[in-house]
C-alpha cells in the first residue's frame, strides 16, 4: 500500500484548513474497529460510524448532490458493512474500502432516483465554525462546485478532502490513475475559470 501523502496546508489558512489531521487519517484504530465489527460488537459499529461517517457522507454528498440521498447512501453502506462483516478482517485498507462501497452505492442511489439536478441549493461546502466571513464564500463556491460533473466533483473531494492520492482514487473508483489525475486537473481548472469569471 502506498503511503498517504497529506497535501500541505497553505500558509495563510492554517487555522481554518478543512484538512486538519483527524481520526480518519490515523491508521491505528481501523484494524481494531473492523475486527470488532467482524465479531458482531455494536459498540465497534458505533465507533466506526464516528470515525468514517463524515468522509463517507461528504463523498456521497458530492456524488449525489443532495443531503437526503447522501444520508441514504451512508445508511446503506453501514448495513452492507454489517452484512459483509465476515470479510472485514481480510480487507487491506479499511478506509479506502469504505469509500469504495460508498462510491458504488452513491451511483446506485443516483440511478434509482433518476435525479439530474440537486434538490437543494449547493450543499457541497459549509463554512468552518467561528468564521463570520466564510458562509458567503461557502455558498458562492458551492454554487460553482455544483457546475462540475459528478465524476469531477467526486475526484476533487477524494483528493482534496479525503487526502487520497490519484492512484488510490483510481483503485477505489475502478479507473486508471491517469483518468483520476485528469479528472482532478480538469475539475480544478473548471473551478478556477468559474471563480475568476463570476463576480
Amino acid at each position, binding site marked *: 500500500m502506498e503511503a498517504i501523502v497529506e497535501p500541505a496546508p497553505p500558509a495563510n*489558512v492554517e487555522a481554518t484548513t*478543512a484538512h486538519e489531521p483527524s481520526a480518519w487519517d490515523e491508521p491505528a484504530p481501523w484494524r481494531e474497529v473492523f475486527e470488532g465489527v467482524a465479531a458482531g460488537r455494536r459498540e465497534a459499529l458505533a465507533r466506526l460510524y464516528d470515525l468514517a461517517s463524515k468522509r463517507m*457522507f*461528504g463523498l456521497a454528498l458530492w456524488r449525489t448532490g443532495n443531503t437526503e440521498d447522501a444520508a441514504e447512501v451512508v445508511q446503506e453502506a453501514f*448495513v452492507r458493512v*454489517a452484512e459483509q462483516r465476515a470479510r472485514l478482517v481480510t480487507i487491506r485498507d479499511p478506509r479506502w474500502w469504505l469509500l469504495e462501497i460508498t462510491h458504488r452505492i452513491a451511483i446506485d442511489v443516483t440511478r434509482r432516483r433518476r435525479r439530474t439536478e440537486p434538490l437543494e441549493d449547493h450543499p457541497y461546502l459549509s463554512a468552518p465554525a467561528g468564521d463570520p466571513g466564510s458562509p458567503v464564500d461557502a455558498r458562492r463556491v458551492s454554487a460553482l462546485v455544483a457546475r462540475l460533473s459528478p465524476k469531477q466533483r467526486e475526484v476533487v473531494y477524494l483528493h482534496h478532502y479525503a487526502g487520497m492520492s490519484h492512484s488510490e482514487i483510481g483503485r477505489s473508483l475502478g479507473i486508471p490513475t491517469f483518468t483520476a489525475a485528469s479528472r482532478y486537473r480538469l475539475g480544478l481548472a473548471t473551478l478556477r475559470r468559474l471563480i475568476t469569471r463570476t463576480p
Partner: protein
Amino acid sequence: MTDQRQDTETILATLEPPGPPVALRDRVLRRAGAALDRPPAQDPWVRIYVSRPLRVAWAATVLVLVVANVFLPRTNRRPRESFIEGATGRTPELREVVDVPRLREAYVSFDAFTASAFAGSRRKEKTS
C-alpha cells in the same frame, strides 16, 4: 497556472463539506445493528466451497464445458454462400446482384502494377 491552481486549492481548504445530519447516527446504527443480528452474508466462492450440492453443480458445469470444448466439431458452420443461396433462391440474376464480388489478390497486384506505371507516365508528362 500553478499559482492559480494553488489559489483554487486554498479557497477549497478554507471551507469544508458539511457533516452528516445528527439524526442520521441513530438511524444508521439501528439499521446496521439489525443487520449485525442476522447471520453474515457469505462470499459466493465460500458458499460454493461449503455447500455440497453447489460444489457438485459447479464441478458438473466445468465438466460439461470441457467435454463440449473437446468433442463438439468446430467445422460445422454454415458457409457464407449458403446465406446468399437462401436469400436469393434459385434466381441467378438476383444472386449476381446480391453477391458482392470479392477482392482477388491477382487483380490487386495487377492494379498496383498498372497504377504505378500510370503514375510514372504522368510524372514523365509533367517533366516534359
